[in-house]
């Protein structure tokens, strides 16, 4: 499955997240062409209030 399809299935909008796949940041323009593989480490990150 490609990243864009996966994220859309989770209801994620591109303006609100940053995606890191196997420690590499993947910009929204590359989501469609990026395929997810088994054992991939996918982080979907967003901003929130606070600090420590």
């Amino acid at each position, binding site marked *: 499955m490609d990243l864009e399809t996966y994220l859309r299935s989770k209801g994620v909008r591109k303006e609100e997240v940053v995606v890191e796949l196997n420690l590499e940041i993947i910009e929204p323009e590359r989501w469609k062409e990026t395929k997810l593989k088994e054992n991939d480490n996918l982080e979907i990150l*967003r901003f929130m209030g*606070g600090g420590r």
Partner: protein
Amino acid sequence: MRDILTVGGLEIENRLIIGTGKFPNYRIMEEAIRRSGAQVVTIALRRMDFDSREENILNYIPKGCILMPNTSGARNAEEAVRIARIARAAGCGNWVKIEVITDQRYLMPDNEETIKATYTLAKEGFAVFPYMNPDLIVAKRLVEAGAAAVMPLGSPIGSNRGLKTKEMIRILIHEVELPIIVDAGIGRPSEAAEAMEMGAAAVLVNTAIATARDPVSMAQAFSMGVRAGRMAYLAGLASTKEFAEASSPLTGFLGR
């Protein structure tokens, strides 16, 4: 003549920086930022939780505010660098506050890892704002590392204990050429004013505003405190004396 703080390549006039954690909700946070006139806010990066669909905090930060993402959660320089790069990729500018904390009881920052992260991120073009435990030698290393400012703690995060590290902060203000931004533990507007009277360039306040009964008014009070302290500093505070000095000369009556 306007009193402007030039730091990290940008100019700011309001020297109160607000941390966005712990507010009752984002609407109150937004109103507090507006009422205070703060131009810089800190935000954190976290893993998205698909089960609790929280709103996007960026929708509640007034347009024109400068974002200072922090590396909270980082336990070492490598993690801090990783978070900083992600934050920049999210498109919120090149400012980053380095927060490297492993101590869970006092949330004391790891000065050594902070220095390492500063070197790396400054070389990558970030405007680096390192949060640190005030120590002159560490501050000098941060200057060498290319930091945009130095952010010494006043007292533990969230403790509202004020400027417990006052003497160390004073040394930094005197000896370090970069803006000194006091961050953590400021519990009252009077304490923010005190930091500014000492010559701090700015202060960062979160808990004392966000957890006040009326955060919006408290944000305004802090803003006023910061302005008062800054104005007093610029006006040249009078020296303290050991003995009294009468305000008016003796009048020459009453037998004197």
